[in-house]
C-alpha cells in the first residue's frame, strides 16, 4: 500500500490541536497501527471509520494513553496535543485524561446517584464546595441535554436511566471536568434510532466548546455529525479529508468501496 502523505492544511477553518506523528503501535508481535500521521482540528468533529480490526479504536485510545493499560503494547512515533508530546516521560497521565475525556460504546455509569456520577470526577480533581458542585453538575447535565429529564431525581440511581440517558450521563460526567477533547468510541451503537439522534444532536452542540473525535461503524452517522473523516484499513490511514469529500468523492477506491458498503 502506498505511503500516505497527509497534508497539514486539512483542518481548514479550525486551528490544529492534535498532531499524530508517524505513530505505530504493536500488540506484541502484531502491528496494529502503521506509521499514522494525522492532524486534527480544534472544535470540530473528526470521525474515524473503517472495518473491524482496522485500528481506529486503538488510535482513539492513543490520544489519551488508554493503551498504557494494556500489557505488551509498544508505541513508536508520537502524539502532540497543543504542541506537547503526550508520550514524553514527564506527562502526568491522570492530568492528560482530564484534558482528554472519553465516552465508551457501552454506557458505564457508576452504581451511584445521577448527581454523584457527574460530581465524582470533580471531587477527585478539585475540592469544590457543595454549591460549586451543584452548579457544575447542573451545567454539565444541561450541556449533555439531560437536565430536564433528571432534574427531579438527581439523587436516584443512575442505573435506573434508559440506555440513551445513561450514555448522555456519561457525556455529562466527561464534560464536568472540562476537558479540551472528548473521545467517543461508538457512543451510539447500542442505542435505538431516537436515542442515537439525541446523541448526534448533542455532539453537534458540544463541538462549539470541545474537540471531538469519534469512532463509528455507522457511515451515515459520520456523514451527519463529523466535519472531517479518516478512513483506516488494516492499521493504515487510507484517506483523510472533509466529510463531504469522503462521502461524495473520495480520492481512493478503497474508501469508496468501504463507504458504499462493498467491503468491510
Amino acid at each position, binding site marked *: 500500500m502506498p505511503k500516505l502523505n497527509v497534508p497539514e492544511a486539512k483542518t481548514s477553518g479550525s486551528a490544529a490541536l492534535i498532531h499524530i506523528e508517524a505513530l505505530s503501535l504493536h500488540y506484541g508481535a502484531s502491528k496494529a497501527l502503521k506509521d499514522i500521521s494525522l492532524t486534527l482540528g480544534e472544535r470540530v468533529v473528526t470521525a474515524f471509520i473503517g472495518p473491524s480490526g482496522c485500528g481506529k479504536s486503538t488510535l482513539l485510545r492513543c490520544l489519551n494513553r488508554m493503551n498504557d493499560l494494556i500489557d505488551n503494547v509498544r508505541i513508536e512515533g508520537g502524539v502532540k496535543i497543543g504542541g506537547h508530546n503526550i508520550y514524553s516521560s514527564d506527562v502526568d497521565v491522570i492530568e492528560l485524561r482530564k484534558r482528554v475525556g472519553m465516552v465508551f460504546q457501552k454506557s458505564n455509569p457508576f452504581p451511584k446517584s445521577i448527581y454523584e456520577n457527574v460530581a465524582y470526577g470533580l471531587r477527585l480533581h478539585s475540592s469544590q464546595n457543595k454549591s460549586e458542585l451543584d452548579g457544575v453538575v447542573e451545567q454539565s447535565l444541561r450541556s449533555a441535554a439531560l437536565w430536564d429529564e433528571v432534574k427531579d431525581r438527581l439523587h436516584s440511581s443512575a442505573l435506573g436511566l434508559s440506555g440513551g440517558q445513561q450514555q448522555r450521563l456519561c457525556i455529562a460526567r466527561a464534560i464536568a471536568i472540562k476537558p479540551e477533547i472528548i473521545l467517543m468510541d461508538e457512543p451510539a451503537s447500542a442505542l435505538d434510532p431516537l436515542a442515537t439522534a439525541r446523541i448526534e*444532536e448533542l455532539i453537534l452542540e458540544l463541538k462549539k466548546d470541545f474537540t471531538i473525535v469519534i469512532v463509528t461503524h455507522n457511515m*451515515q452517522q459520520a*456523514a*451527519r455529525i463529523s466535519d472531517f473523516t479518516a478512513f483506516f484499513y488494516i492499521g493504515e490511514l487510507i484517506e483523510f479529508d472533509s466529510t*463531504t469529500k469522503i462521502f*461524495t468523492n473520495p480520492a481512493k477506491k478503497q474508501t469508496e468501496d468501504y463507504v458504499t458498503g462493498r467491503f468491510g
Partner: protein
Amino acid sequence: MENHFEMGLDALRQKILLMASRAETAVNQSVQALVQRDYDLAVRVREDDNIIDQFEVDIDEMAIVLLTKAPLASNLRLITVAMKVSQNLERIGDEATKIAKRARDLAQEPPVKINFDVNRMAAMSLAMVKDALDSFVHRDSAAARAIIPRDREVDALNKEIHQQLAQHMTENPDTIGRCLHWIVAAKSLERIADHAKNIAEEVVYLCEAQDIRHTLKN
C-alpha cells in the same frame, strides 16, 4: 436542542425561495422589456441569468450533502424534489433570457401592428409559477393538483397567438422577422407554464409520495 438536520433542510428551502424570487423577477422583467420595448431592461435580464444558474449549482450541492446523511421518507422526498424544483426554476430563468433576447431585438425595430394578448399569456404563466411555488412552501397537494390543468389554457392561448402571427406574416411579409421574434417569445411563456406544471407535479410527489408525471393527459 436544535435539530441540525432540520436546520439544513430549512436552509435548502430558503435557498429555493430565493431562487424562485429571482426567477419570477426575471420573467416579469423580460415580459416588461418585451411589451414596453425596453432595450436596457432586456439586456439586464440576460446579464442576471448567471445568478439563477449559480442558485441551481448551490442547491444541488446542499442537497447532495444532505443526502449523504441518509434522510428518509418525507425528508428524502423533499431533498430530491428541491433538486428538481431548482432545475425547473433554472429553466424558467433560461426562458426569461430567451424572451429578453427577443425583446432586445424587437426594441431596435418598429413595432408590429397586431393585437394579441401576450400580457394575458404572461400573467397566466407567471401565476402558475407563483402558485406552484406557494404549493411547495405550504406543502399543499390540492393546490398543486389544481395548477396542472391550467397548463392547457396557456397551450391554447399560445396556439391562438401563433395562428394570429402566422396570418399576419402571410399578409405582411415585411414583418416576418419581427413576428418570428414574437412567436419565440410566446413559446417561451408557454414553456414557463410547462415548468410550473412540472413543479406542481413534484409538489404532489412531495406531499403524497405519488408520482403523477405522465399519467394525466393535459
